[in-house]
């Protein structure tokens, strides 16, 4: 009997320990930054300071409901500005509803549309197709006078821009195109450990893919299993391989309006353009060397950024927001440098591209207070709002003169501001050339590039075959969408998407109907 008691207790204790082991408190990860806002346009003109419009105060107090998905840092700035707005227009109060989770935001805003309870002013997400929401948004033509529009670069309100549908203007750009660039983050301490520093003690920035691989291996060997040369957060392939595809773009690939599409030939080119295979081969090579942190595919962005700050990873790619993400959890962490991303060994063959226009804030089609809403939208489009945004180190804006490194205190953000203007070019826009292309709605393909890249990295897919099949899938959906649009009466063809004279190293100004 003694034996039975002992066995019961021992077995129970073993399982109990296992149960309790899983109840250990998790290490808190920093909150993941949301998707970057839509790229807009960098002006080439000098814009005079904007003056508040002259308005007659309403006899009754007006309360506007405003929704956005800004994360906390941007939200704090917006709150501060809304307070100033109220001081300027005391009869207007703005009630801000913030949903920083972009997915939750999309669902919530859709629900307000469905129930006729849309807020007076609201944001839509990057890549949102305005045509899907057109009926819920008030055209701004009444207020966007030629004089007002001068603050934006030419082409901002052309038909075919993301903020224009037909003859109606629905929004205006705010954030600058430079926000989309990816930069290479170098951990100074780990570069020092591997002896990869210059005479000033700064990390020797790898300029080519070969150098990246070489440096990553040297650092990994110097670390002896305690740290790694390269890291990324592959748990969300859209983010992790979004960085990779953006680097491919810099190496001569395409840009986001049709990812992987070769605008010079009218064909998808994941399989045929070496820009993609080069960057994937770099990752596979570093994986083979053991230079990439082994848990990369289990990590999210926030965790890999934390591991970089803790000296476990020497290099990672990221937007400027990676640097600002460290401010709260690692306030004293400054031992890193931001440099331009590496290019293929054969040299740089591209840039980041943007198209004119952009949509950030929208007026509800059902608002009872259009004049007051316009006051708020005009406030958001003002130069003082834009300058404050840059000074608060939240990103670059469409006002070029606000994007000055000397406006900011943080040296890393100043580096980003410096890079942001030099790494972007104006790209071709099929929607400006032929606005009827808005009727072309390619269906989503599955698996798309993010999953395919993940499959190749984990060894589940063969790179050559997978990229060729991805091209076939995407080409088929584009051609099918064009055929459907033609059947519906739209005058479109594949020729609208071909810009054979596009030089990827220069700005491309799209001419309507050409």
């Amino acid at each position, binding site marked *: 009997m003694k034996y039975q008691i002992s066995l019961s207790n021992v*077995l129970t204790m073993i399982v109990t320990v296992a149960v309790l082991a899983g109840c250990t408190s998790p290490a808190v990860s920093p909150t993941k930054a949301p998707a970057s806002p839509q790229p807009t346009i960098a002006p080439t003109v000098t814009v005079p300071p904007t003056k508040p419009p002259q308005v007659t105060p309403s006899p009754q107090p007006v309360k506007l409901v405003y929704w956005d998905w800004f994360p906390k840092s941007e939200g704090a700035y917006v709150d501060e500005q809304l307070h100033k707005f109220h001081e300027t227009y005391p009869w207007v109060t703005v009630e801000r509803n913030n949903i920083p989770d972009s997915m939750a935001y999309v669902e919530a805003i859709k629900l307000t549309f469905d129930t006729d309870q849309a807020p007076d002013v609201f944001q839509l997400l990057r890549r949102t197709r305005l045509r899907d929401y057109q009926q819920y948004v008030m055209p701004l033509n009444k207020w966007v006078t030629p004089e007002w529009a001068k603050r934006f670069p030419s082409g901002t309100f052309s038909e075919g821009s993301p903020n224009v549908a037909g003859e109606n203007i629905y929004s205006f750009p705010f954030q600058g195109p430079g926000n989309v660039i990816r930069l290479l983050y170098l951990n100074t301490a780990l570069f020092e450990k591997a002896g990869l520093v210059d005479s000033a003690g700064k990390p020797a920035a790898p300029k080519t893919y070969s150098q990246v691989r070489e440096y990553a291996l040297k650092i990994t060997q110097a670390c002896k299993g305690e740290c790694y040369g390269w890291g990324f957060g592959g748990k969300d392939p859209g983010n992790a391989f979004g960085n990779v595809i953006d680097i491919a773009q810099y190496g001569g690939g395409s840009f986001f309006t049709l990812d992987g599409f070769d605008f010079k030939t009218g064909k998808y080119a994941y399989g045929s353009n070496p820009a993609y295979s080069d960057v994937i081969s770099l990752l596979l090579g570093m994986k083979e060397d053991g230079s990439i942190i082994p848990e990369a595919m289990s990590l999210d962005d926030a965790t890999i950024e934390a591991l970089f700050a803790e000296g476990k990873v020497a290099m990672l790619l990221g937007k400027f927001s990676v640097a600002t993400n460290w401010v709260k959890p690692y306030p004293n962490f400054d031992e890193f440098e931001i440099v331009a991303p590496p290019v293929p060994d054969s040299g740089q063959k591209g840039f980041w591209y943007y198209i004119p226009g952009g949509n950030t804030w929208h007026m509800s089609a059902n608002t009872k207070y259009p004049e007051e809403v316009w006051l708020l939208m005009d406030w958001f489009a003002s130069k003082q709002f834009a300058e404050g945004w840059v000074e608060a180190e939240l990103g670059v804006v469409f006002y070029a003169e606000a994007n000055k490194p000397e406006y900011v205190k943080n040296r890393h953000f100043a580096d980003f501001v410096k890079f942001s203007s030099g790494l972007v070019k104006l790209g071709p826009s099929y929607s400006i050339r032929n606005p009827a292309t808005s009727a072309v709605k390619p269906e989503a393909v599955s698996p798309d590039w993010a999953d395919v890249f993940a499959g190749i990295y984990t060894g589940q897919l063969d790179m050559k075959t997978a990229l060729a099949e991805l091209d076939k899938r995407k080409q088929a959906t584009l051609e099918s969408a064009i055929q459907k649009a033609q059947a519906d009466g739209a005058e479109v063809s594949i020729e609208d998407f071909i810009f054979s004279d596009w030089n990827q190293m220069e700005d491309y100004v799209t001419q309507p109907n050409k």
Partner: protein
Amino acid sequence: MGKFMHNVKKHVWSYVFIVPMAILFLGFTVYPLLSSVRYTFYNWSGIGVPKDFVGFKHYINIAKDPFFWNAFRNTFIYAGVLVPVQLSIALVLAVILNSKQLRLKYIFRVIFFSPVVTSTAIVGIVISLLSITAGSEISRVLVQTELINRPIDWLGDPRTAMWIVISVGTWIGLGYPLMYFLAGLQAIDQELYDAAKVDGAGNVDLFWYITVPSIRPVGIVVLLVTTLHSLRVFDIVQVMTKGGPYFATEVVGTYIYRHAFFGTGVGEGDANLGFASAAAFFMGILVMFISVLQVAAVRYAATYRQKRP
């Protein structure tokens, strides 16, 4: 009709008590289920009224989609491994916890049941972090002992990710079958054991000839509930792997979620609630069919056993 009304009047309070639950069931289960059937015939992003009628296209595409069948296969692998393992462990633990000799049994019961009342999302995050921290230490030991030649990314490697998810799913849901079995064990008449012991039965004989037959009715219910619950797996997979890497852990739940809210996982504009509804309905029909087969098989087995001389 008269007999029916008579019965209703006779048991009127029973119907009154059923009414609130019936209203909730109709409002929050039956109505959404039926209304979603309509969406399966449309391309619909979830905004406004569905207009783009596509007929049975979504069903045809789902039937032809290798990623749906991959998710379907993974769902059944998950359920096929989890159910027998979880029920076996739960039964053994229930017998141990039912032992009169075990001290602190109430504390142990609370401990074993606690994962059930813990948020799956929290458990998923904790285990994900453990797979990185503790997992890298385990990898290091395995590399040092030359059992493997390079560290393993436990949740990022298609060869290991599904097994980790199944293990966690088994552990987190262990409490329910454990409690069912425990309740079943406590209902067994002690005199049966005493009589068997007098007849010379050992511990193994007691278990196989007294315990197992006595808790068989409970076991059938637990088997059905656990199977259906495991076929609906979603949250633990979504939190731990999001169905990755490259669909290695994708189950039907995450497949539906991906198409309902993300499409390809890249852009918000790709969502198609119509397609996702069709996938959900398709899976619902399959699960219903499998459940009917399961019930029929269990009944047949019970009848066969009773007829056996």
